[in-house]
């Protein structure tokens, strides 16, 4: 079936170090992948989405590349900032109306 697996639990990083949150998926359809970010007491917001034309999406210094060969859409940033501390979800749209979210990764950036 369709599913998303992402780095789970808590990730703590020192400011300035690179960020990499893993996301892999299984999809019976041509997949669309997304990263959402959720700050405390707020709704999730779209951070990045995959494109059909192999462009690499970037936003707020984050980027991710859809690799269909490895079924992955890892989130990366070269240098973590304190303001990046949040909950991150990888999500898959598989077909007409089906969305699947990973269990979320809580990123904490420390000075």
């Amino acid at each position, binding site marked *: 079936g369709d599913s998303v697996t992402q780095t789970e639990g808590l990730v703590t990083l020192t400011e300035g170090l690179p960020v990499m949150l893993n996301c892999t998926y299984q999809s019976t359809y041509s997949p*669309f992948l*997304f990263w959402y970010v959720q700050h405390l*007491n*707020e*709704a*999730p*917001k*779209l951070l990045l*989405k995959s*494109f*059909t034309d192999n462009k690499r999406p970037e936003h707020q210094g984050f980027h991710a590349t859809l690799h269909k060969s490895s079924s992955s859409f890892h989130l990366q940033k070269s240098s973590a900032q304190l303001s990046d501390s949040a909950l991150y*979800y990888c*999500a898959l*749209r598989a077909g*007409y*109306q089906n*969305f699947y*979210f990973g*269990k*979320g990764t809580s990123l904490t950036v420390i000075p």
Partner: protein
Amino acid sequence: AQTIHQWPVAEIKAVGSPLSLGCTIKGKSSPNLYWYWQATGGTLQQLFYSITVGQVESVVQLNLSASRPKDDQFILSTEKLLLSHSGFYLCAWSLVWGNNYAEQFFGPGTRLTVL
């Protein structure tokens, strides 16, 4: 521009009491609509989705029900609240389809506390 509203913003209810949460989308015709629940400190759990008026599919019920009485409105309800219903309820919408418009957008959410 499309907007999504949820009401109420927050609610404190007693165990066993009824509940009705609402969501309205403006600026989009016939979107797909979704209800999610998030326990405090927990992950997103999809509850229901709807692709058209009057049609709702259950993903996980949690003793809740949903209805779509109008194209732009999605309602979540129960006749008897449980303590386990506490959490953050999020409404979301997506376009029916489109290569560059596949994502889901979330409303601001309703914080529910059941005592």
